[in-house]
């Protein structure tokens, strides 16, 4: 790449590079003051090794604002700490040491762990820090009388990570326990299988050369039985439990044939050992258990990883707000708010409860609730809705409704209703399992019946070898192995699948429905058009640069639309007229930008007709230029829509925004079906109508107003920077915010289904081929054991091909998309 990259986060640094940091005597380019501050903090801590050891670049950094400092202070309150902090030693009451469980956001590789541990341990009062690379959890032990927790959290933020309290709740404890128990079972099965296999080889060679003294044969069998017993009763216990549950609920899952094979072979081998006739299958039993447990363990780890990632999405900072207490505004958790409280809301903050604007005016962004992307003007006495964003000025509101009574809560009620109606997607593996069990049992009975006519003394042993040979080891690994590999691969791409049915159901989808604001569009304002007034002499670039120089002095979202352009001018004597525009001097020229009646009051100019927000730039004598600010489309949106349409999916746009805007968007993306001004209720009934015509619907959205639809759709996806509610009610989250991943997911499911098909075909084929041989009494125990092991390994290896699928397609606009996501995070 020819462009200069930020040394810290590897994003392109805007040319000319203005920020540098000294690393090991060299000036390294930085993309923003945030990265510069973090790099300097790392170097100052003597931790420059991080840059040598890291294998992934760091995440881009937001500046630490006063707001974050205040929010972190909330964590020093004991009532907030009680959720995630425990005393280090319960036995001593005078011990000031506490242990906090934190979730760290931004860990990309092992060097991050090293950096965090060393940086935090260098703080006075911090005793021990353990960071877990796979779960991103951190355990910090510190002396509460020497350093407040907020300082530790601040130190984490200083080096570019974010720390959230990790509530080690019941669910988390269960995951940990499940993981540990599973590893124990795996160890017992693994060690047991190796030992039994060793004895089995001696037994096989004895059986083949037929010269083993009976005493040694019996000794080896008894020892094998001793080792196999814990394998069956401890390691294989979960299979028996599930099978028993399946039988009680009259639902045949894969664990039923598995249990019949393990249990049957083990009992028959015991019989053979102690009554010294027939064959022993201890090796098959143990290896079978070990293979299946390995498959299940991989599945379990993938499941835990997504469960953790999903929980991390909801485990955010407790929302806080500035409440008036005795004439002063103090930051308190939102849960402490009561009706009639007075709350101050700063620009950029979310409104914590429904309330009435007490004085002044501002504009709020209600796109999360309505889908409308332009801020809405609010005057004194107007109602401000919970979860919308304050854009313009700091204002004070009087809380009218909290919690369950707010407008948002009514949408949540709709969500619960939609969840109940959600159609279920059947699991392929379970469907196969039912038939398989029936077939195996039927064949076993026939074989027994057939042989008892010919050779009654062999009938039992031949039936048993049929059961062992048809044991569905490969079959029960076929689907989970493929799904686990595919889920892991999607996670790497930036699509987090949080519910199991997504991959199995995606291929049935025929309608893909998009929300507009924040999903197909970036959901933030950007500069899309510049129209100079006719007799203006300056070039477009100059005009934009002048506007950017003025807007650089404002924090307003509109101002951010200009921030990408390079800074060739500097403005002085800048005055910010709230709600109107900005005034300043560039090259001794007095300039104004903002609303037309502010920039050039004597103007008779008409605002251009197209939608969006139009700003006018003017000097003292004449208007100069129009700037159009709109919510622009994601660069990959059009390509994604086209790819989906090529796959034969019907793409539909449902938005709460006004008709003209939605129509424009739909047209520029080539979407034929769209509906504007839809309420959450409308959207839900739209998809339910489709579902009633037996269409399968995938919904992609981000706002709170999309939540009921997300819950009601057959499969739903939320964008990475969605509202928390949308992310938790969706089946998958596009963490990267790149819509192309959606089309990639469709491609991957096709591939996954093909591999599952191959796996099932191979597993069934192997069983079918072995069945007649076993039924004819021609399979010796060693053949059964090797055949089973080989077919399982083949199935797993085939599934692993999914985790190194071809590189995803990249659209040209990607680099840009990344910089924009970055802004969104900031």
């Amino acid at each position, binding site marked *: 790449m020819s462009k200069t990259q930020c040394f810290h986060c590897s994003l392109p640094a805007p040319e000319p590079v203005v920020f540098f940091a000294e690393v090991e005597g060299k000036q390294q380019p930085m993309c923003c003051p945030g990265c510069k501050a973090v790099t300097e903090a790392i170097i100052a801590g003597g931790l420059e090794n991080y840059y040598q050891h890291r294998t992934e670049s760091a995440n881009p950094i937001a500046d630490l604002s006063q707001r974050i400092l205040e929010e972190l202070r909330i964590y020093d309150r004991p009532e907030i700490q009680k959720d995630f902090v425990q005393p280090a030693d319960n036995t001593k009451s005078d011990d000031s040491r506490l242990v906090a469980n934190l979730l760290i956001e931004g860990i990309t590789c092992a060097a991050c762990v090293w950096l965090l541990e060393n940086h935090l*341990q260098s703080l006075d009062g911090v005793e021990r820090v353990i*960071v877990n690379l796979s779960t991103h959890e951190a355990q910090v032990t510190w002396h509460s009388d020497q350093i407040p927790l907020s300082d530790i959290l601040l130190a984490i933020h200083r080096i570019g990570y974010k720390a959230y309290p990790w509530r080690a709740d019941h669910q988390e404890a269960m995951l940990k326990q499940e993981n540990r128990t599973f590893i124990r079972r795996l160890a017992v099965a693994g060690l047991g299988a190796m030992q039994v296999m060793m004895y089995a080889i001696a037994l096989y060679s004895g059986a083949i050369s037929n010269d083993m003294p009976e005493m*040694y044969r019996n000794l080896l069998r008894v020892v094998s039985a001793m080792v196999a017993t814990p394998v069956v009763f401890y390691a294989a216990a979960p299979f028996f439990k599930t099978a028993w549950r399946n039988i009680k609920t009259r639902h045949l899952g894969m664990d039923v044939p598995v249990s019949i094979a393990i249990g049957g072979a083990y009992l028959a081998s015991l019989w053979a050992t102690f009554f010294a006739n027939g064959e022993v299958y201890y090796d098959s039993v143990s290896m079978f258990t070990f293979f299946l447990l390995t498959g299940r363990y991989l599945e379990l780890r993938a499941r835990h990883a997504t469960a953790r990632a999903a929980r991390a999405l909801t485990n955010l900072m407790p929302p806080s707000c500035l409440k008036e207490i005795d004439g002063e505004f103090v930051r308190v958790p939102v849960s402490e708010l009561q009706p009639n409280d007075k709350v101050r809301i700063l620009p950029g903050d979310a409104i914590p409860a429904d309330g009435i604007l007490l004085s002044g005016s501002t504009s709020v962004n209600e796109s999360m609730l309505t889908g409308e992307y332009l801020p809405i003007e609010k005057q004194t006495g107007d109602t401000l809705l919970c979860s919308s964003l304050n854009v313009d000025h700091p204002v004070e509101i009087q809380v009218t409704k909290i919690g369950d009574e707010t407008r948002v809560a009514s949408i949540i009620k709709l969500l619960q209703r939609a969840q109940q109606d959600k159609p279920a997607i059947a699991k392929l593996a379970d469907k196969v399992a039912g038939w398989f069990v029936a077939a195996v049992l039927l064949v076993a009975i026939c074989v027994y019946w057939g042989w008892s006519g010919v050779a009654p003394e062999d009938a039992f042993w031949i039936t048993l070898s049929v059961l062992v040979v048809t044991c569905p080891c490969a079959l029960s690994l076929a689907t989970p192995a493929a799904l686990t590999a595919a889920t892991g691969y999607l996670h790497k791409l930036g699509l987090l699948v949080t519910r199991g049915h997504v991959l199995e159901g995606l291929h049935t989808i025929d309608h893909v429905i998009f929300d507009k604001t924040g999903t197909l569009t970036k959901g933030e304002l950007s500069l899309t058009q510049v129209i100079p007034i006719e007799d203006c002499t300056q070039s477009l670039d100059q005009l934009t640069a002048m506007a950017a120089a003025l807007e650089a002095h404002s924090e307003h979202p509109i101002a951010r639309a200009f921030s990408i352009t390079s800074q060739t001018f500097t403005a002085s004597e800048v005055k910010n007229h709230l709600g109107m525009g900005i005034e300043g001097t560039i090259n001794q020229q007095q300039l104004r930008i903002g609303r037309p009646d502010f920039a050039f009051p004597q103007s008779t100019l008409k605002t251009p007709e197209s939608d969006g927000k139009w700003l006018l730039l003017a000097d003292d004598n004449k208007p100069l230029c129009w700037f159009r600010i709109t919510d622009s489309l994601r660069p990959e949106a059009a390509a994604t829509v086209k790819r989906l349409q090529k796959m034969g999916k019907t793409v539909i746009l449902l938005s709460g925004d006004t008709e003209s805007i939605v129509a424009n968007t739909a047209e520029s993306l080539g979407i034929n079906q769209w509906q504007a001004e839809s309420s959450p209720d409308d959207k839900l009934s739209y998809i339910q109508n489709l579902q009633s015509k037996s269409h399968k619907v995938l919904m992609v959205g981000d706002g709170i107003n999309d939540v009921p639809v997300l819950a009601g759709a057959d499969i739903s996806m939320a964008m990475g920077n969605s509202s928390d509610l949308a992310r938790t009610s969706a089946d998958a989250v596009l963490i990267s915010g790149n819509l192309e991943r959606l089309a990639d997911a469709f491609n991957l499911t096709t591939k996954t289904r093909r591999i599952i098909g191959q796996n099932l075909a191979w597993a069934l084929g192997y069983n079918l081929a072995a069945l007649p041989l076993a039924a004819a009494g021609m399979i010796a125990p060693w053949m059964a054991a090797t055949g089973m092991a080989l077919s399982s390994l083949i199935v797993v290896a085939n599934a692993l091909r999914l985790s190194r699928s071809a590189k995803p397609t990249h659209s040209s606009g990607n680099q840009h998309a990344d910089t924009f996501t970055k802004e969104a995070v900031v």
Partner: protein
Amino acid sequence: MESLIILIPIALVLIALAVKIFFWAVDDGQFDDLEGPAHSILFDEPQRKSSSNSDTTNTSDNNQ
């Protein structure tokens, strides 16, 4: 061949021991992070205030 009669029981005892040690390691939290420790040996250790990173949960504390 007679040696089997002694060697096999010894092997069984050793396995039992191995399983016991493994169980202890699992309970000690050594298998909670299967990725991080593989990388951590690659980093140079700077001088630490306390050398307590190697031990894990519920160890007895040294500064009582």
